[in-house]
């Protein structure tokens, strides 16, 4: 599903942040991405989400060489990827329901066609009572769950999560991990970027460790 060959990334004329990345992410797989702060985890996630282009090497996503793709094709590929960012990126003027339903609105679907699906998912992640709340009044954990719900509502083939448990207590962190595991069981390939060792120890999965721009994989 994802293939990186000799991929390097630098910002402007600066040093290479990521070097000689070679890996594959098969469908239905689960992996943690870890490493010290500043190791390049977020940059790698951005490469995977196509918001950065590599300065060298080949990135192949869903069978497409991304260097050959135009903006519209990249937007189409992004619809197959869900992303949860550290700062949630919820839209403050929209309710929790509207934020989660946003991918469907962008697809041009009518509200009646996805209403039940969104409400079911919100109940599933424990936000059934907060559907009409605006993000500024949600707690950190609720925002995190809303962001996750938005990322998975359109059933992406690949889910990227950047420090998804960074702003929640350990109990909620464990619950969120269970959510990701369940999503993975239902067919979504998951990559969770974290430096929370305790979280990774809770689930046996492949680990990608970034160190000084290089990637080490522990099966």
């Amino acid at each position, binding site marked *: 599903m994802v293939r990186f060959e000799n991929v390097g990334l630098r910002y402007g004329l600066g040093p290479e942040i990521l070097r000689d990345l070679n890996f594959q992410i098969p469908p239905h797989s689960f992996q943690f991405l870890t490493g010290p702060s500043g190791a390049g985890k977020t940059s790698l996630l951005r490469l995977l989400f196509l918001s950065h282009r590599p300065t060298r090497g080949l990135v192949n996503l869903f069978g497409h060489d991304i260097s050959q793709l135009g*903006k519209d094709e990249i*937007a189409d590929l*992004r619809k197959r990827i869900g992303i949860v960012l550290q700062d949630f*990126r919820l839209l403050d*003027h929209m309710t929790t329901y509207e934020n989660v339903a946003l991918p469907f609105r962008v697809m041009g679907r009518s509200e009646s066609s996805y209403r*039940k699906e969104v409400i079911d998912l919100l*109940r599933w992640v424990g936000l*059934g009572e907060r559907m009409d709340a605006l993000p500024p009044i949600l707690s950190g954990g609720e925002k995190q769950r809303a962001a996750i719900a*938005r990322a998975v509502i*359109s059933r992406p083939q690949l889910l990227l999560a950047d420090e998804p448990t960074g702003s929640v207590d350990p109990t909620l962190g464990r619950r969120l991990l269970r959510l990701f595991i369940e999503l993975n069981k239902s067919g979504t390939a998951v990559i969770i970027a974290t430096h929370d060792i305790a979280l990774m120890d809770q689930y046996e999965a492949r680990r990608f460790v970034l160190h000084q721009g290089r990637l080490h994989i522990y099966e």
Partner: protein
Amino acid sequence: MSRTDERGVLVDLGQERPQLPARARNMSPIVPRASIHGRALVAVVAIMTFLASMTTGTVLLVSASAAEWQSDVASEITIQVRPQAGRDLERDTAAVTEAMRAQAGIVEVKPFTKDESGKLLEPWLGTGLSMDDLPVPRLIIARVQPGTPLDLGALRNRMTQVAPSASVDDHRAWIERMRSMTNATVLAGFGILALVIVATIISVSFATRGAMAANRPIVEVLHFVGAGDRYIANRFLRHFLRLGLEGGVIGGGVAMLVFGFSESIAGWFSGTPVGDQFAALLGTFSLRPSGYIVLAVQAVLIGAVTAVASRQTLFATLNEVD
């Protein structure tokens, strides 16, 4: 993924109470309507539209008043009969009046009597003077039927044959001077209008840039959920077109009210010396219905200019986000 089956697994994620049945929802717009930057943009467009409308309205007023003047003056011919030794001024005046009345295309001839001619000189010479001692010429005003071409040279010859001291003036020099002055005023008005429109585009671009910077997180989130540039651009262009039209309608509407109000004020002062002087100079000081239509079209155009200026800024922002 079958969520119905898996819901039980994650039921401990929240403390849920019984849920309300799913119902249709009024969805918020993707780009929020009310924001500080949005209101600032409406204010900028409204002010610039008001200034542009005032300029256009004034240009229309001046050119309409000048056209009225020109048409009044152009439809008149003045014949001056000067006193001449050995000739009877009264008889010459009467002969010229008759000759003018016989002229084709002349609808009205009004000779000024001795007393009337004297009154014309009162502002300069004062009252109480005996006009018998002064060689005061006589004036004859002839009104020409509109659209009738007159051979002024032939008319002059005929009048000179009737009374050698008669001279014919069709006010051509005055009209030419008026036309130059009016054209210069209208040209200056268009110059100011062009400057106002350029200033509108520049200020709208800056205001849009501010509004887009404030909306950048929305653009980023839309990218995250797979929206293409065209989708995002459509949403934002619609938003900015609406803001531009809102500003245009407010600015243009206030300008129309100002012109309507000025017309009422001119009506209140009509009959007073100030009002009469003003009316003599600027006509009725009222915009014709076509003038109001021009102002309305201009307001819509400025709204469209806002959308076009926003489009440039929007695509620059989309490229930056990419």
